């Protein structure tokens, strides 16, 4: 059913259609609206049977989900940023135990300096945890990916994280075609656990595994993620059959057929990039876009395939590995190391910095002229950076950089001294 609806609300209602049995809530912006909405549905009885648990921390949220999933319940929770880092030990544990928990990650920057706005640092921080990570470009996709996430997770006994940009998607009111209950029921079978805590058939789950078997356990998890590379496209196809619209994939190409330059990115920025790319096309540049929907497992073959005719690739990232450069870029480089196309990284949108079409167009134009640096920080205010650098070289106790910069740009009153 078509609705003009807030992204968080759309996700909440879709998750509810997936009949989760245990949902944990711990508030952190910008995922809070999702959990609030589900809580209301449980309270009203619209979602039943379901245990909605207000926990005391994100660590507990994931831990409760672990217990619920191991006991055979369909478990869901949501978090962001610091919350994800606070639960990170349990995040790894859920994957290690092979528990099909589904979690929404409302992507948000990580402090310090504390910042509630969107970027992808949080998702990147758990990229190696063993979770499947899917990125939504739109709220429509965000909603649809959750339905696929539960099925994927339960088929493979792996947890799935659906990443959607905080505020940009979670708080955006847009047109979404919400799934219908019969459709979801037809698409998503009841949870049949591979291992479960059952008095009639007792087992021990979570044994201590030494060097003699640990590597095998990890390798098996890797193979299951590789299986996902097969299952994700298949599930997307089935999804379209049931729901009548395409949604979900490993990658989503746009105007790449003849593209010399392919821009690669994750999440909502793809929309803005497509506008920019259309503009560059009109200007004569043969630019295309490749959205990565499945970041883990990483679809190396699909990426290589999409870049087969490109001479250059520009990776637009909302996160980066300090002291090195792009994170997604590294994966792309690995996937394309033998294609001979040049790779450039644009880091942008950190901590919610707006990513404007204009800036992107300029960058793409430069790329077309091979004038784009291999690592570019979009709209970076070099003047401010230089001022702080100078301050640091001249005075030992130069004070906290963040506050210095805010003072420079006049956002806070200058110190009385």
């Amino acid at each position, binding site marked *: 059913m078509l609705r003009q609806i807030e992204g968080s609300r759309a996700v909440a209602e879709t998750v509810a259609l997936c009949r989760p049995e245990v949902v944990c809530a711990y508030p952190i912006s910008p995922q809070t609206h999702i959990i609030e909405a589900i809580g209301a549905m449980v309270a009203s009885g619209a979602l039943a049977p379901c*245990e909605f648990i207000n926990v005391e921390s994100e660590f507990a949220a994931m*831990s*409760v989900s*672990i*217990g619920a999933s191991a006991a055979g319940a369909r478990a869901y929770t949501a978090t962001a940023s610091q919350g994800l880092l606070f639960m990170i030990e349990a995040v790894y544990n859920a994957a290690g135990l092979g528990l099909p928990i589904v979690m929404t990650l409302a992507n948000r920057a990580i402090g310090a300096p504390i910042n509630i706005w969107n970027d992808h640092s949080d998702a990147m921080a758990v990229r190696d945890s063993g979770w499947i990570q899917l990125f939504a470009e739109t709220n429509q996709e965000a909603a649809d990916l959750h339905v696929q996430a539960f099925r994927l997770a339960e088929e493979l006994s792996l947890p799935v994280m659906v990443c959607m940009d905080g505020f940009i998607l979670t708080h955006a009111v847009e047109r979404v075609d919400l799934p219908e209950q019969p459709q979801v029921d037809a698409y998503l079978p009841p949870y049949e656990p591979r291992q479960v805590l059952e008095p009639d058939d007792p087992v*021990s789950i979570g044994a201590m595994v030494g060097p003699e078997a640990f590597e095998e356990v990890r390798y098996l998890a890797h193979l299951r993620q590789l299986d996902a590379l097969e299952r994700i496209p298949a599930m997307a196809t089935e999804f379209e059959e049931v729901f009548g619209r395409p949604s979900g994939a490993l990658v989503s190409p746009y105007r790449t057929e003849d593209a010399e330059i392919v821009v690669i990115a994750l999440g909502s920025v793809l929309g803005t990039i497509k506008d920019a790319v259309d503009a560059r096309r009109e200007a004569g540049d043969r630019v295309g876009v490749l959205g990565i929907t499945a970041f883990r497992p990483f679809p190396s073959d699909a990426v290589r395939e999409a870049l087969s005719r490109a001479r250059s690739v520009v990776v637009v990232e909302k996160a980066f590995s300090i002291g090195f450069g792009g994170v997604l870029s590294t994966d792309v480089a690995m996937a394309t190391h033998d294609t001979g196309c040049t790779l450039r990284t644009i880091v942008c949108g950190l901590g919610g910095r707006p990513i404007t079409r204009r800036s992107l167009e300029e960058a793409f134009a430069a790329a077309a002229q091979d004038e784009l640096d291999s690592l570019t920080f979009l709209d970076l205010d070099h003047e401010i950076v230089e001022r702080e650098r100078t301050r640091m070289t001249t005075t030992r106790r130069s004070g906290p950089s963040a506050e210095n910069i805010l003072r420079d740009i006049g956002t806070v009153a200058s110190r009385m001294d």
Partner: protein
Amino acid sequence: MTTQPVRFYQVGSFAVGNRLLDDDGRTVQSDPNRTNSLDSGHRACQGCGEALGARYALDAAMRASQGRLVAVNATGCLEVFSTPYPETSWRIPWLHSLFGNAPAVATGVAAAMKAKGRPDVRVVAQAGDGGTVDIGFGCLSGMFERNDDVLFICYDNEAYMNTGVQRSGATPPAARTATTEAIGSVAGNPFGQGKDLPRIAMAHDVPYVATATVADLHDLEEKVERAMQVHGARYLHILVPCPLGWGSASSDTIRVARLAKETGLFPVFEAVDGKVTGVSPIRHRTPVEEYLSIQGRYAHLFGEHPRTDIISRIQAMADRNIATYGLLAEALADTDPKGVDV
């Protein structure tokens, strides 16, 4: 024929079994068909109090739940020695997740059972003192506050034994651990305010809180039984001596626990809805020296120059417990025996 209750002398009120009692009057442990929830072949040290406490508690819980039990375990000795791949010693459904999250994981299991309409399945969470009073404290407090339907059992051996006997928030004053060595002016663990988990649990007003030791099986089993009769968050704190960490003889595990109670250093009591409703009184009041002197972790208090000052401070702690809980009341042990009628 007139019958008068004859207290059971030869077998004693405190022995595990009692041939003159009918089966349902006997302890779970005296039953040849007990579950042995923690089975033979585990890798606990010789004389491990925790292995003993775990079997005592879970077998009793199994009887109370007619075998419909799920256990969640925090990281620690109990987890490591019971489930080294490829062997597990557990005969019941068992889950280990992390060091600090056992209460939350148990909450999840309980929630799942509720959502699935399985009220028959009961949930137990277990952890050592580290997993309870330190790293798991936040989750435990949350579990208490929400009154989740979980029985949380702390096997308190008063230090981080799994990692090599380091100090925990439950380590008693003056005790030597690997991180509170018996050197310097304040030898061993410094005197602090202590972290009285049972009292903290009571402050949450959870329906049932109790302490017990492996030295009094009847008391322990009755408490598990009572705990299982209620729903909501319940807390059972069991003192389980660790021969390795305490430097006591492996054969003395139960004796040491008995002395902890008889000296008053470990008050054994029961609290319902936040109020103390019963204590198990001291039977033969014993000076703390008798308890301390048989443990290597207190060796520095004795020897050539005994630290009588520290010993008397410890005695004062015992005396305070005795006063606080009224541990010298008319011995229930003999008024509440495993008696038989004739």
